[in-house]
């Protein structure tokens, strides 16, 4: 197994694993994972943050456990074991939100339990945590979680501003603003997600094209 030794891990490697999830391999903008919560709970910024934090807790917790147990779990039953681990964390989050912030729990409803089937989480266990030492797995999970939360917040904030004329429940434009109700309904979610994906991919493309464009200009 091509696994880096614990001793080889330096701060640079940890940083690289952490940062890649935020931008270069962002789970939403690049890998297009976890679209279900992305669509369902981003009608306000606060819901997006609650979902981001819950997913982060589950992802980091599961990655830690899976990475620690990676040599003990038989390969044949690994997926079932990961699911058990993930589902346990999700249920703990479910109980905790219900106890600490009942209003938000009510808003997110079934989508908290559905974190279990967020392919981002199982994907990270299979692709990363199960084959890397704990410190790297934690860095990867934290980066991916932050990238996911960032994407949720982008969509949630835009949809709340346009669809309700407010941000974090605070009114922005006064009483005379007529909200674009469609933005907080599912079609608005799809439209906004499409636009945001377009924007981020355009930015990425521009970044990779930049040397080429520069060369072109020099030639002229």
């Amino acid at each position, binding site marked *: 197994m091509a696994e880096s030794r614990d001793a080889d891990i330096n701060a640079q490697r940890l940083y690289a694993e952490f940062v890649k999830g935020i931008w270069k391999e962002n789970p939403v903008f690049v890998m297009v994972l976890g679209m279900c919560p992305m669509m369902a709970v981003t009608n306000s910024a606060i819901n997006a943050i609650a979902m981001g934090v819950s997913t982060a807790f589950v992802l980091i917790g599961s990655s830690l456990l899976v990475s620690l147990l990676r040599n003990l779990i038989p390969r044949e039953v690994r997926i079932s074991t990961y699911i058990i681990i993930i589902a346990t964390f999700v249920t703990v989050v479910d109980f905790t939100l219900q106890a*600490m912030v009942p209003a938000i729990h009510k808003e997110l409803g079934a989508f908290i339990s559905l974190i279990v089937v967020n392919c981002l989480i199982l994907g990270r266990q299979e692709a990363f945590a199960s084959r890397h030492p704990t410190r790297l797995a934690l860095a990867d999970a934290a980066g991916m979680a932050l990238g996911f939360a960032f994407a949720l917040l982008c969509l949630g904030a835009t949809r709340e501003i346009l669809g309700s004329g407010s941000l974090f429940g605070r009114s922005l434009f006064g009483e005379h603003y007529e909200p674009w109700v469609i933005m907080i309904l599912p079609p608005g979610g799809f439209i906004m997600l499409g636009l945001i994906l377009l924007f981020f991919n355009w930015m990425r493309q521009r970044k990779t094209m930049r040397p080429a464009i520069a060369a072109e200009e020099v030639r002229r």
Partner: protein
Amino acid sequence: MNQVNLTISAGQKEPGSFRLVFTLALAGMLSGLALAGAYQITKPIIDANKAEALRRGVFEVVPGSRRFTPVELVDGQEKVTAYATYDADGAFLGYALEGRSVGFADTIWLLWGYEPQRRRVTGMKVLDSRETPGLGDKIKKEKYPPFAGQFADLALEPMIIVVKDGREGNNEIDAITGATISSKAVAKAINDAAAKWLAHLPATPPPPDSAESQGSGGADEGERAGEGG
């Protein structure tokens, strides 16, 4: 990045089925323990939250109330709990009752206040609903549009009617634009509950503190209500 290592290296033996079953059983058992622990810790807080939400709801739908006593209403097999409310001095104000009806998305569950002397609705508060955000969920909001506010002093007889072009009669409410179904569902929840349960309300309200010493849930709520006053 997602490729799965499908080849088993030559020297590696496949683990026996005992080890597989054992791993899964152990994982399941540990998971069960963790969940039982989390449940034990959060259950009292969750219950307290629910009781608190109910308590606030009751005080909101009967303005001026500071304490309440649960009253069990029985109709054949069915049972509901109404809440007799009192002001700070213990004078009876009215009842808070629950209402349910199917809205646009799911069941709308609400509390409404009723003043028996004047036979009027004194307030309405949605406890749980899944109506469309931005449209139907305005049934929860006091302001813009002031939907819930319309129930502050509303005649119940012959029944609450939802209108679309400005309320005139004192038993009419204005529907929310774009959410007529949700608006009607709220009116229906109250109309249905009124038709079924108002006749079962006790002729004389129970004295303020009667339920505090009896019944498990009731005693808890009674005490909390007392603290609130």
